[in-house]
């Protein structure tokens, strides 16, 4: 990335970081109901990958998907409004935190059942190939998802059909509260499984936005050229607990510390400095991020609740929900 590109990526990561912080605070204040799965700490995976994708590529994410929605162009306001059950939410308050989706931007959904969206990404890649569009599909998923059957079915089918799909694992070392290493037979849950399906499996520093962008770009080029899918395992760490107010007490202090020192934003900030971007420029990016999220919190908070009649719309393509005459 050149300095401008990296600064842009930095600002995007800062927006994610602040949006997640806002979501966390709003949750604690009772303004976000249900649950949230925050991606603070994992920003570089989403922002780095997005930087390498085309606008018409397809992204499929999980319940921990705020960063992907934002990286693909959803605004903090749309996202927070969804979390706060507002009519202006990305999904008109029907989806919630776990289901952020911005189809118009090729962000084809956040899915809350582990592994389920991997076959969908395969299907989107198949469709791209059938339509001859050179589009790519990317599925983001956690380390825990590599032990569920759908993961393997998706990899094999993608490989056999040589489809343009990337499987990007965000390995943050934990499922909900259980270390992935305790329930996985190989050290690299995603990358070590790729050979079982005849496809390359790479590991990347998931907190290094440039490294992620480089890897995705390279694997994407390969996939678009018809050379088939790939697995990219991004090593990263979540700053919050798994969900809601989980204090993540199950994580050793020194592990947390080590990873906090390897913060994707700090890393990018250091790189920017190395490339001669001044502290003031970085501060302005931070300030823009702060402002956009602050305005988003306000605007989302001020938005109306959904019309109750919306509960009975959108089941069917005709807009309705009638199941009988």
């Amino acid at each position, binding site marked *: 990335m050149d300095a401008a590109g990296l600064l842009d990526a930095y600002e995007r990561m800062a927006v994610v970081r602040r949006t997640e912080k806002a979501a966390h605070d709003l949750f604690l204040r009772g303004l976000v109901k249900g649950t949230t799965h925050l991606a603070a700490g994992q920003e570089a995976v989403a922002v780095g990958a997005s930087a390498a994708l085309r606008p018409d590529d*397809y992204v*499929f994410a999980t319940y921990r998907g705020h960063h992907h929605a934002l990286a693909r162009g959803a605004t903090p306001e749309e996202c927070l409004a969804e979390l706060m059950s507002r009519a202006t*939410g*990305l*999904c*008109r*308050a*029907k*989806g919630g935190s776990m*289901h952020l*989706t*911005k*189809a*118009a931007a090729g962000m*084809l*959904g956040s*899915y809350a*059942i582990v592994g*389920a*969206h*991997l*076959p*969908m*990404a*395969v*299907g*989107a*890649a*198949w*469709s*791209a190939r*059938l*339509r001859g569009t050179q589009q790519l*599909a990317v599925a983001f998923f956690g380390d825990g998802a590599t032990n569920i*059957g*759908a993961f393997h*079915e*998706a990899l*094999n*089918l993608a490989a*056999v*059909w040589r489809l343009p799909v990337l499987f990007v694992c965000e390995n943050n070392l934990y499922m909900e509260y259980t270390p992935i290493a305790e329930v996985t037979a190989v050290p690299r849950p995603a990358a070590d499984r790729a050979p079982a399906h005849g496809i390359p499996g790479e590991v990347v520093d998931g907190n290094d936005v440039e490294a992620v962008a480089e890897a995705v770009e390279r694997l994407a080029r390969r996939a678009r050229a018809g050379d088939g899918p790939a697995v990219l395992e991004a090593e990263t760490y979540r700053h919050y607990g798994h969900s809601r107010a989980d204090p993540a007490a199950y994580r050793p202090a020194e592990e947390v510390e080590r990873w906090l020192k390897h913060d994707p934003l700090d890393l990018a900030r250091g790189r920017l400095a190395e490339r001669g971007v001044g502290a003031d420029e970085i501060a302005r990016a931070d300030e823009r991020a702060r402002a956009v999220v602050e305005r988003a919190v306000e605007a989302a908070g001020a938005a109306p609740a959904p019309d109750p009649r919306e509960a009975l*719309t*959108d*089941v*069917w*393509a*005709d*807009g309705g*929900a*009638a*199941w*009988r*005459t």
Partner: protein
Amino acid sequence: MADVITYRDAVAEGLAREMRRDASVVCLGEDIGAAGGVFKTTVGLLTEFGPERVWDTPISEQAIVGAAMGAALTGMRPVAEIMFSDFLACCWDCLANEIPKVRYMTGGQVTVPLVVRTANGGGLGFGAQHSQATENWALTVPGLKIAAPATPADVVGMMAAAIRSDDPVVFFEHKALFATKGAPPPPGHVVGLGRAAVVREGADVTLVALASTVPLALRAADALSGEGIEAEVVDLRCLVPLDMATVLASLARTSRLVTVEENPYQGGWGGTVVSVVADEGFDLLDAPVRRVAGECVPLPFADALEEQVVPTVGKVVAEVRRLAAY
């Protein structure tokens, strides 16, 4: 076209007609290509449409249905085959939790125009894991349309409607009907989803049937006719949309109702039909409502045993007699 067509051939015909009409219709499934399907319901498709339209898959039901969903979200109209309807269980997450919910939970941002075709039901002696009538599984999940044709013409007409539908449709093809024959459908034949058919008129009792139980109900009606009882037979054709208007209109004429279901009594679709009737049609009823349904057991292998647990003409006749005498 010949003057009769089998239900089996009607499946391939229905698929071919839509594939000719619309290049975005593609098929995927196990052994559907070169082999023409294990029930020979996709014979000829690979030859006519080539391998970019007809895709053989590994044994990966989750990947099959998930890939169909992903393709449907991105501009295609995939038709996925799940070989036996029992195996819908292997991709139940996608079918129950993803496909029918994604439009709603994204606030209407996407549509999922796909069809999952599957061979349903008993009668071929395939035992407990290859004989279930699982249309009631699909009924438990809002957001799926459910088609289950009983005749070759309906297979073609409902296949057209299912593939053209912008909503996901589970299309149950009945194994015991594959060899049956019927009038060929005219060109351009489309049977809109959610329209039941009164396939026999009669003033004394309404028999509500679906797929395999339609011919069975008709045979029972013939037998009853000999005893002076005239049964009206309603072929529901779809479970969702469920055409209760036709059922209630028939009940208004007959005042008596029996459902004839292949799925088990517990959790069977007749429960939903009867509960609407016991509410909205209560004043129309002159007698208890009965359900002739599968017994609440797995399907046994031996014919002598299977007969005990599936609906039969004899069971329908006996129940109707009881009602008529009420």
